[in-house]
C-alpha cells in the first residue's frame, strides 16, 4: 500500500507557510518595488516581478442566445480539473453582469487597504466622472490565509473635454488604458483587475473553488459568458494580481503555456505604446489582441491567423490570392506571432460578446470544444465539460484555428476550417 500521503506532497500549504516567504520578509509586509509600494503578495509580487512560467487549466462557456446564468457551471468545470492547479492562483471573468450600467467602464481593483482606495479614488476623480463605486462582496474562506485585499469597483465615464485637447486623436478606450497603466505602475497599494464595460474579473491567490467562494460567484452574478482559469505557477508563492484572467478594457485572457517569443512580442507591443510592467506572458498576449483587433481593426479570425500562421510549405499550395494574403500577414505581423506551446481563452465585448479559444500551430496544449443547447463550451479537458452538460457535439479544434462563438450569432467557427476558405476573399489591392 501507499506509505506516503500524496496530498501532503502536493499541497502547497503543507510544511510551507506560503504567506511567510520572500526575501523581503513576511507576507503582507509593505515594500517598494520600482516606483511603487504595496503589500507583498497582494498588490505586489512577494519576490519582485519575475518572468513566470504558466501552467494551468482553463474553462469557459458562452450562451449564444444571450441567456444569463450564475457561475455554478463554470465553477464546476474548472474545479473538475484539480490536477492542473496547485492552489497559488485562480480567477474568473464574467460578461453581462451589469446590464443597467452597461455603458460605463467598470474598473475592479485589488487594494491593500482603505488608504489605497482613497488614492485611487482621488486619481479617478481627477481624470474621469465616477458614476458609482462600491465594495465588491467577499467573504472569508477557510484555508485561504489572511490578509485579504480590499476589493472595490468604480463605474466611470470618460469626460468628453478630456479627449478634445488630445493631439493624437485619443479615444475613450485609450484614455482608460492610460488610467489603468497609471494605477498599476504608480499608485501604491492598488492593482486593476479589470477595466471593461459590463464585465468584471474576479481573481486571487487560492484554489479555484476557494476563489469562487470568496467572491460568491455561484450565486451573486449573472452573465452570458464566463471564463475561468486555475494556475500552477512555478515561481514564488502566488500573488493576487498575478492570477488570470488577465485583462485590459474588455479583453479577458486565460492562458496555458509559455511564450518562447516573449522578448520579441514584448518589444513589438511596447513600440505601439503598451507598457509591459508585469513581465508575464499573458500580459503581452492580451495587449496583442487589443492591438490587432481594436486598434488595427483586424477581424478576430484574421488576428488568429497572425498569431498562429500557416507554415510556408502549406502556404505554397494555396490558391494565389489566399497565398498572397497569408504571406502578407506573416510579413507584417511576424513579430506578433506567438511562438511556443499555448492554449488561450479570450473574452471580448466587441463587436458583440464573443468567446475565442485558440491553440498554437503545433498543438502542444490541449483544447476541447462542445455545444449543448445554446451554449458553447471550451476547456483544457473534456471531463470538465462532461460534468456540466451532455453535449451533442464535442471536438478538438485544428492547431492554430480558433473556436469563435458570439452572442446572437452562435458558433461562428469551430476551429476546423480555414477562415479564408469559410469567407470569400475579395482582393482590392
Amino acid at each position, binding site marked *: 500500500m501507499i506509505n506516503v500521503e500524496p496530498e501532503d506532497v502536493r499541497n502547497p500549504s503543507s510544511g510551507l507557510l506560503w504567506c511567510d516567504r520572500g526575501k523581503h520578509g513576511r507576507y503582507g509586509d509593505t515594500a517598494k518595488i520600482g516606483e511603487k509600494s504595496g503589500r507583498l503578495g497582494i498588490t505586489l509580487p512577494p519576490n519582485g516581478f519575475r518572468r513566470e512560467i504558466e501552467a494551468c487549466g482553463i474553462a469557459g462557456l458562452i450562451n449564444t442566445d444571450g441567456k444569463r446564468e450564475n457561475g455554478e457551471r463554470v465553477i464546476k468545470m474548472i*474545479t473538475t480539473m484539480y490536477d492542473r492547479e496547485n492552489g497559488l492562483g485562480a480567477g474568473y471573468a464574467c460578461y453581462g453582469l451589469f446590464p443597467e450600467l452597461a455603458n460605463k467602464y467598470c474598473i475592479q481593483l485589488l487594494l491593500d487597504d482603505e488608504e489605497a482606495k482613497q488614492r485611487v479614488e482621488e486619481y479617478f476623480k481627477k481624470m474621469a466622472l465616477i458614476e458609482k463605486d462600491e465594495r465588491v462582496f467577499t467573504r472569508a474562506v477557510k484555508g485561504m490565509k489572511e490578509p485579504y485585499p480590499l476589493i472595490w469597483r468604480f463605474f466611470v465615464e470618460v469626460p468628453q473635454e478630456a479627449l478634445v485637447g488630445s493631439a493624437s486623436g485619443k479615444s475613450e478606450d485609450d484614455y482608460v488604458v492610460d488610467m489603468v497603466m497609471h494605477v498599476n505602475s504608480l499608485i501604491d497599494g492598488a492593482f486593476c483587475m479589470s477595466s471593461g464595460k459590463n464585465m468584471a474579473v474576479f481573481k486571487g491567490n487560492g484554489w479555484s473553488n476557494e476563489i469562487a467562494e470568496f467572491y460568491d460567484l455561484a450565486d451573486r452574478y449573472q452573465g452570458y459568458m464566463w471564463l475561468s482559469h486555475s494556475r500552477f505557477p512555478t515561481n514564488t508563492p502566488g500573488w493576487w494580481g498575478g492570477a488570470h484572467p488577465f485583462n485590459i478594457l474588455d479583453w479577458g485572457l486565460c492562458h496555458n503555456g509559455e511564450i518562447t517569443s516573449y522578448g520579441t512580442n514584448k518589444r513589438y507591443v511596447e513600440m505601439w505604446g503598451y507598457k509591459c510592467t508585469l513581465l508575464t506572458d499573458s500580459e503581452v498576449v492580451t495587449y496583442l489582441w487589443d492591438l490587432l483587433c481594436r486598434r488595427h481593426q483586424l477581424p478576430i479570425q484574421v488576428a488568429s491567423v497572425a498569431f498562429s500562421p500557416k507554415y510556408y510549405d*502549406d502556404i505554397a499550395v494555396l490558391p494565389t490570392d489566399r497565398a498572397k494574403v497569408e504571406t502578407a500577414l506573416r510579413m507584417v505581423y511576424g513579430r506578433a506571432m506567438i511562438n511556443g506551446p499555448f492554449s488561450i481563452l479570450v473574452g471580448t465585448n466587441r463587436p458583440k460578446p464573443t468567446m475565442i479559444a485558440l491553440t498554437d500551430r503545433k498543438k502542444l496544449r490541449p483544447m476541447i470544444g462542445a455545444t449543448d443547447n445554446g451554449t458553447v463550451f471550451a476547456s483544457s*479537458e473534456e*471531463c470538465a465539460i462532461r460534468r456540466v452538460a451532455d453535449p451533442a457535439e464535442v471536438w*478538438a479544434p485544428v492547431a492554430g484555428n480558433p473556436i469563435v462563438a458570439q452572442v446572437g450569432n452562435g458558433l461562428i467557427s469551430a476551429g476546423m476550417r480555414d477562415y479564408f476558405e469559410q469567407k470569400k476573399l475579395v482582393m482590392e489591392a
Partner: protein
Amino acid sequence: MTGKSITIDAVDERTKSPHRYWILNEKIHHAANEGYKHIILKNVFGQRFIAACMEHTDLKIDIYGTPGNDLGVFMSGPTVEVHGNCEDQTGNTMNSGTIVVHGNAWDVTGLAARGGSIFVRGDGGYRIGIHMKAYEEQRPVIVYGGSVKEFFGEYMAGGVLVALGMKINGSKVEDVPADEVVRGSLGSGIHGGTIYVRGNVPERLLGVSATAEQFTQEDEITLRPILEQFCRYFEVDMERIYEMEITKIGPSSSRPFKAYYNARSV
C-alpha cells in the same frame, strides 16, 4: 472473490465530487490485488493514470465516463474498455495489454508504445503513435476508426499504425472526406514499422523519410487479423473497410539522417 466483478464509483458519495485520482487508483489496485478479475468504474470524470503500470494479465477494467490523461500508462497486461471519450496520452509507453475506446482519443496516444493494442472507434489528434517501437513478438498496434491529425507515426521505429477514416455511428458508417483522414508530416522520421491508411495519401502529406510502398500479400496477412479484432469490437463490417484501397507507408531508409552529421574531429 476470483471471477467476481466489483463496481467502483469514481464520485465520492459524501461530497458528490469526483474522487481525486490517487484515491480512485488505490481502490483499483486494491481490488486487483484482492483477486477481482473484472473491475467496473462508473462516473469517471478526468481521473488520470488509471491502470498505470498494472501487470495483471487476466484483468478486465470497464470504464464509464471520461478517463483522464495517461490512461494505461506503462501498462503491461490488463484489458481496458472505455465507454466514452479519452483525453491525451492514452496508452503512453504501453508494454502489453489492450485498450478499446468507444469514442475519441486525442493527442499523443500510444506515445513510445512497445507492445499491446489500442483500438479507437472515433477520431484522434496530434502525434499519435509517436516513437512506437517493436522487437520480435513485442509489437504495438494502434488502430483509429476515424480521422487523425498531423504527425501520425512521427519517429516510428516499429509496430503497426492504422487510420481508417470511417465515421462509425452505431450501425451507420460514413466515409470521412478524403482530405481529412490523415494530415501533414505523416510518419515524419519513420525508420521502422508500418503505417496503413484507408484511401489515397497525397505525397505532400508524407513526412521526412516516409514513403508510400506496395501493399503486398504479407501486409494482408499482417493487417487482416488486426482489422478483424477492430470489427469485432465496434461491430463493423470488414467488407466496408476493404471498399477502399489501403495505402502502405514505410521508411525510405533506416538511417534517414545519416548524411546530416559529420563525425570527424577538428
